[in-house]
């Protein structure tokens, strides 16, 4: 059974159609990269999958269940099998450790060892007692990632996970995502073609709210380069 599927998914805000007819599927343990220019609808797609927004049309099938049609209580249950990291993460008041424990606490599953493991995984071992609001952008991004990883989600949604990071931190996050694959299904919005090439099993291209390409990274990226002459792999970003 396909792990996650979107069927003719669409989102409109008034007259503005942000997404239209998005039909794609992800197998368990795969990494799917969503690429496309800024404002193409990648974040909206992640938000619809995470049930943060209601679709205007279509549905999201998660592990065989149409989760968009579920009552709110059931939606929370579905959402607790996922975790999303936003492009510009916000920190709750309190320490880094308290931030990372948040998702565990709402599930009443507080476990200090898991928090320690997550801190180690993102290279923030010694940051547990720091006040989260005093972190740099990159440290916040890594904390947000740890906050999601500690939940051991079946589906991890990442919105530009390395956009605010220096090259060294970005490389460590890339390694982390690489290690996660096979254990966790990852859907990652990115501008970074090289990251796409390195990490993704499949790539979906979204332009102006429509799915214009879907396939293996080398095929899709080659097609993108053919369509857009200004694009080449060494230029790294869209």
């Amino acid at each position: 059974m396909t792990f996650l599927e979107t069927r003719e998914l669409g989102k409109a805000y008034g007259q503005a159609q942000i997404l239209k007819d998005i039909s794609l599927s992800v197998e368990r343990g795969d990494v799917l990269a969503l690429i496309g220019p800024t404002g193409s609808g990648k974040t909206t797609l992640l938000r619809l999958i995470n049930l943060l927004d209601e679709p205007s049309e279509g549905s999201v099938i998660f592990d065989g269940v149409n989760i968009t049609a579920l009552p709110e209580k059931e939606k929370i249950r579905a959402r607790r099998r996922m975790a999303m990291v936003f492009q510009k993460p916000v920190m709750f008041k309190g320490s880094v450790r308290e931030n990372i424990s948040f998702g565990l606490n709402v599930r009443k599953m507080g476990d200090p060892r898991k928090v320690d493991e997550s801190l180690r995984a993102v290279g923030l071992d010694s940051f547990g007692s720091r006040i989260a609001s005093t972190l740099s952008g990159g440290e916040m991004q890594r904390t947000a990632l740890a906050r999601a990883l500690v939940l051991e989600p079946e589906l991890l949604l990442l919105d530009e996970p390395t956009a605010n990071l220096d090259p060294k931190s970005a490389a460590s996050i890339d390694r982390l995502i690489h290690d996660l694959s096979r254990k966790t299904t990852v859907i990652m919005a990115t501008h970074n073609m090289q990251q796409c090439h390195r990490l993704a099993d499949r790539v979906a291209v979204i332009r102006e709210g429509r799915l214009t390409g879907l396939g293996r990274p080398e095929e899709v990226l080659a097609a993108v380069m053919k369509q857009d002459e200004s694009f080449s792999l060494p230029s790294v970003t869209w």
Partner: protein
Amino acid sequence: MEEIWNGLLKAVELIARLDPVVVEITARSLFISLTSAFLAALICIPLGGFIEFRSFWGKRAIVNLIQTLYGLPTVTVGLLVFLLISRSGPLGGLHLLFSPAGMIIGQTILVSPVMTGLTISALAGVSPQIKETAKSLGASEAQVILTVIKEARPAVMAAVLLGFGRALSEVGVAMMVGGNIQGYTRVLTTAIALNTSMGDLELSMALGIILITLSLAINLVLGKVQGW
């Protein structure tokens, strides 16, 4: 001028030797105002949360009405509560008129609009991303609301402190509903009003100094809380 200066010295002496009348009136004022602020907080924080987090018809009008009532004259609330709890009023059978319980009811009503309105503003000031992050990490609706309240804690605390300050310094409700009965319902503000009219300036000034000191203390705590 000499009379004021002598009065001031006498007032300081009354405070310094913990004059029983001064202590009793101050303790009663604090008890009534703190209880009113506590009860109002129990009502207004959830009510503010409900108004902020729910979408319903007329919400904007209700928020406007609450904000309009910030400046509700204390004598109007005093009159309203008087009519409610006087012998011939709907709650007359409870015998609350000229009692501390009646004053608490009046002050709770008086501070409720400002506490509710400021709670709504405090919660609205929390970034929508906090709600979304909590939701995306699996929080239920109730847990999202609790998270937002926790994030807005300094501003909500400020709303409660402002409510307490308003209750402590009001005179209309205390006078009309409490009746300024010595040893029973006499509080700082009503005692100042009475003693000034009777010419006992020393006691009035002593109580005035205490009221100003308490207001200053509230402001200091407020500043500290807002800096959190």
